[in-house]
């Protein structure tokens, strides 16, 4: 089956032939698929169903995938400079209805590997392996059918993600896109007996459908206009349009072509939870935490970023596509950060921070800094996974408790040190503490905002957001992980070490976690008369956390490697179809900016931040803003004094100094806590009118359409009833009808030949 077909690629900048990839590159996506099938089979075999076998199958297959990815990287890294390597597993769709260009639709199971997909696949498979390992312990309470289901969907997700990232055409990308959406749906709704999980799954699915519709239309339009969906053929065809935009001849670009990026953008917004389609992501935290870490923080939600980076040339044909992306990204970042500040459920806070960070990435893309965006995706994947997994460990240990008012001093409890340290590392990264990976990647985007003309305001918004991020991140850290050792278990109280009870709503958050209760609950000291004991994470979780923490710090190193090409990520992105605009920093940015705005070098030279070169000054500005945020958090939520850091003089988990401050701010904190009533707004603006419209349509439907459909259903039945008379079951009658039919057929021939 594995026919390997070399494909000629003319890359965007200079035409270069793609290399034929090694055949085993095709195994990278298919190993997870195999694992999915195996997990399904395990579920069918009763004796081994309730073991950890599915987890090990998944871990091993993902691990091998990762190893293969590393091998691919090692083997082909050099080659990506001159073009992507393509492995066609087999022909999938090959329809032709003529010889003209555009009359053949080719979409193969072809895998396209260049810097961009290489980067993505490295962390998708790598993180996937680690998180699967984590989940093997985390989900252990659910061993049995649910366990198999979980890992099957998990593997299927990695397969879909690999198709999305590695596909050499937009159709395969779309397949993967739908696939990850499906897996996300399945996994959010994993606890399908819990209404809120089902509702969240539905919400995610529907929100994603809106985006998917945009993407589907975009792909169709692309094929309609360019006659191909294969990257290798598509991008050279886009080039003339880019050139005419450069030359200022906007009117030469057909409107349809300009619509493509808008449609693709809608798809990206849906999948990556940007305004206005972001509301599903926080709710998606109903899923098991490993899922939140992998899908809803590290990988799937970055698919939108990948899409825009991959199809960057298509975005360059429209004057206003990228500005829209920039504004949407920046506003999403700000909005999500403000909401995050007021939440009490730590997993939700992380979810909002994910939305916020994704906003950064989009803004980065729009500043023509694919490198910055990709770098941020890369670092974010590690530290956000770390953060989520820490939350998961807490949740696992405290019976589903996620309310930051009910937990305190977790880091100092027995066996929780690794979790605490990992959390600290994650928080530092997220808040952009100097010399962490998050610091460098965020800087890259921020600096570009000031370099690119017209985005100064956005730059300031993003800097403000960075401060807010630091604040809410450390709010969590200070309240949950340091301070007095107090806790109140979640509502999933179970016998101490007995996790055997299957498929109940285990992973939910406390009802108060929504923060709707006006009066904060009072946590009980852990030595209270209560049978509950928090159980610290086991070796799998600890190993993974430690590894991830180290990795998320080490990700900073990528900034320093290959510095001449803007870091390792920069060089990776440079060797891809996003290359044209991957010129993240330095004088390349001049071209990037000039590219769209017809600026001269001189004009560009005036782009400054506080009168200095933005690239230099940004390090200091963002570091200062970040540290200020942390300090405010420390002041409002931290333990009193330096000595308090160890044991903590804050005697209450539920209250902090911030509470005294809040009433002075009026209703704003309450509004933020209620997520600025966006859900309610949607309810009012979309669902109500839709409901009314649907009632009207229902009437029309019942009267008119149903009538037609009923007619269509009635007619065949009527015909069937008359035809049935011929089926009397009598041999002679059958023979007679056959002979009669023969005579009629022969009569037709007679008439036609006479």
């Amino acid at each position, binding site marked *: 089956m594995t026919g390997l077909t070399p494909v000629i690629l003319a890359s965007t900048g200079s035409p270069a032939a793609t290399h034929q990839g090694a055949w085993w590159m095709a195994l990278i996506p298919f190993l997870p698929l195999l694992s999915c099938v195996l997990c399904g089979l395990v579920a069918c075999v009763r004796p081994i169903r309730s073991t950890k076998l599915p987890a090990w199958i998944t871990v091993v297959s993902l691990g091998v995938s990762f190893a293969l990815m590393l091998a691919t990287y090692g083997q082909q890294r050099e080659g990506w400079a001159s073009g992507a390597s393509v492995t066609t597993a087999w022909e999938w769709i090959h329809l032709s209805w003529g010889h003209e260009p555009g009359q053949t639709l080719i979409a193969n199971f072809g895998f396209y590997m260049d810097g961009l997909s290489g980067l993505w696949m490295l962390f998708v498979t790598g993180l996937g392996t680690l998180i699967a390992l984590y989940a093997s312990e985390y989900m252990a309470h659910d061993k049995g059918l649910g366990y198999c289901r979980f890992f099957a969907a998990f593997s299927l997700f990695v397969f879909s993600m690999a198709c999305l990232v590695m596909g050499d055409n937009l159709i395969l990308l779309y397949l993967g896109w739908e696939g990850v959406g499906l897996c996300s749906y399945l996994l959010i709704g994993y606890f399908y007996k819990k209404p809120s999980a089902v509702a969240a799954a539905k919400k995610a699915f529907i929100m994603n459908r809106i985006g998917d519709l945009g993407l589907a239309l975009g792909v169709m339009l692309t094929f309609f206009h360019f006659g191909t969906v294969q990257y290798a053929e598509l991008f050279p065809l886009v080039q003339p349009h880019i050139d005419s935009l450069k030359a200022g001849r906007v009117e030469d670009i057909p409107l349809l072509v300009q619509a493509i990026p808008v449609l693709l953008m809608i798809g990206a917004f849906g999948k990556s939870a940007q305004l206005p389609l972001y509301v599903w992501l926080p709710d998606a935290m109903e899923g098991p935490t490993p899922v939140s870490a992998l899908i809803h923080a590290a990988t799937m939600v970055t698919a939108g970023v990948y899409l825009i980076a991959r199809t960057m040339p298509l975005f360059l044909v429209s004057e206003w596509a990228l500005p829209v992306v920039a504004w949407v990204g920046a506003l999403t970042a700000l909005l999500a950060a403000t909401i995050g500040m007021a939440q009490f459920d730590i997993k939700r806070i992380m979810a909002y921070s994910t939305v916020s960070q994704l906003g950064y990435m989009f803004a980065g893309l729009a500043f023509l800094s694919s490198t910055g965006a990709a770098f941020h995706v890369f670092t974010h994947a590690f530290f956000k996974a770390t953060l989520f997994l820490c939350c998961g460990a807490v949740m696992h240990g405290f019976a589903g408790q996620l309310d930051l008012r009910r937990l305190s001093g977790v880091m100092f409890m027995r066996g929780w040190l690794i979790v605490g340290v990992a959390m600290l590392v994650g928080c530092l990264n997220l808040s952009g503490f100097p010399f962490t990976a998050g610091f460098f990647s965020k800087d890259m985007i921020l600096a570009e905002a000031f370099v690119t003309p017209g985005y100064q305001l956005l730059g300031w918004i993003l800097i403000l957001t960075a401060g807010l991020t630091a604040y809410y991140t450390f709010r969590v850290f200070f309240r949950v992980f340091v301070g007095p050792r107090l806790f109140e278990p979640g509502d999933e109280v179970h016998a101490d070490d007995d996790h055997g009870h299957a498929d109940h709503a285990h992973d939910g958050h406390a009802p108060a976690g929504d923060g709707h209760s006006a009066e904060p609950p009072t946590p009980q000291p852990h030595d209270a008369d209560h049978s509950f004991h928090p159980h610290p994470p086991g070796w799998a979780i600890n190993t993974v956390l430690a590894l991830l923490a180290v990795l998320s710090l080490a990700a900073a190193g990528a900034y320093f490697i290959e510095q001449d090409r803007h870091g390792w990520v920069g060089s990776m992105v440079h060797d891809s179809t996003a290359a044209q605009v991957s010129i993240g920093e330095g004088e390349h940015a001049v071209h990037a900016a000039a590219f769209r705005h017809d600026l001269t070098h001189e004009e560009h030279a005036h782009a400054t931040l506080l009168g200095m070169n933005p690239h230099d000054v940004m390090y200091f500005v963002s570091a200062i803003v970040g540290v200020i945020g942390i300090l405010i958090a420390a002041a409002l939520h931290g333990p009193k004094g330096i000595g308090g850091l160890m044991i903590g003089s804050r005697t209450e988990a539920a209250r902090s100094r911030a509470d005294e401050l809040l009433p002075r701010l009026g209703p704003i904190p309450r509004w933020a806590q209620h997520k600025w009533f966006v859900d309610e707004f949607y309810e009012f603006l979309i669902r109500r009118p839709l409901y009314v419209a649907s009632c009207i349509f229902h009437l029309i439907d019942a009267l008119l359409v149903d009538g037609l459909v009923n007619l269509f259903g009635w007619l065949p039945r009527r015909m069937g009833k008359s035809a*049935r008379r011929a*089926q*009397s*079951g*009598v*041999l*002679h009658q059958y*023979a*007679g009808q056959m*002979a009669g039919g023969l005579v009629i057929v022969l009569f037709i021939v007679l008439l036609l030949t006479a």
Partner: protein
Amino acid sequence: MSELVLLAQSGFPAPMGGLTLAHYLFVSAAMFVLGVIGFLTRRNLIIMFLCTEMMFQAAGLALIAFSRFWLNQTGQTFVIFVITIAAAEAALALALVVLLFRKRESLSADEWSEMSG
């Protein structure tokens, strides 16, 4: 005319005119139709099958006539195979008929019309 001599000398009869062919074909067609009518009207399973044999026979007659018309032996060869198949079918059909007769003590085809619709 030399062709005719040649044919005669190589063991073949003289060519047959289209009119003579039509005679035979009509008889063949009539025999076929008699078979069809018999199949449709007779209720006895054995007679019904006999009628299909008659239809086979009609085809055989047509084949022989064509063979004579085209002066090649293919038609006759075909008839050998037709007889073979007829024999094979007859063997199976008769075995089936006996089986059915044992079941219902009747050779009527109408006995076997329970499934319908």
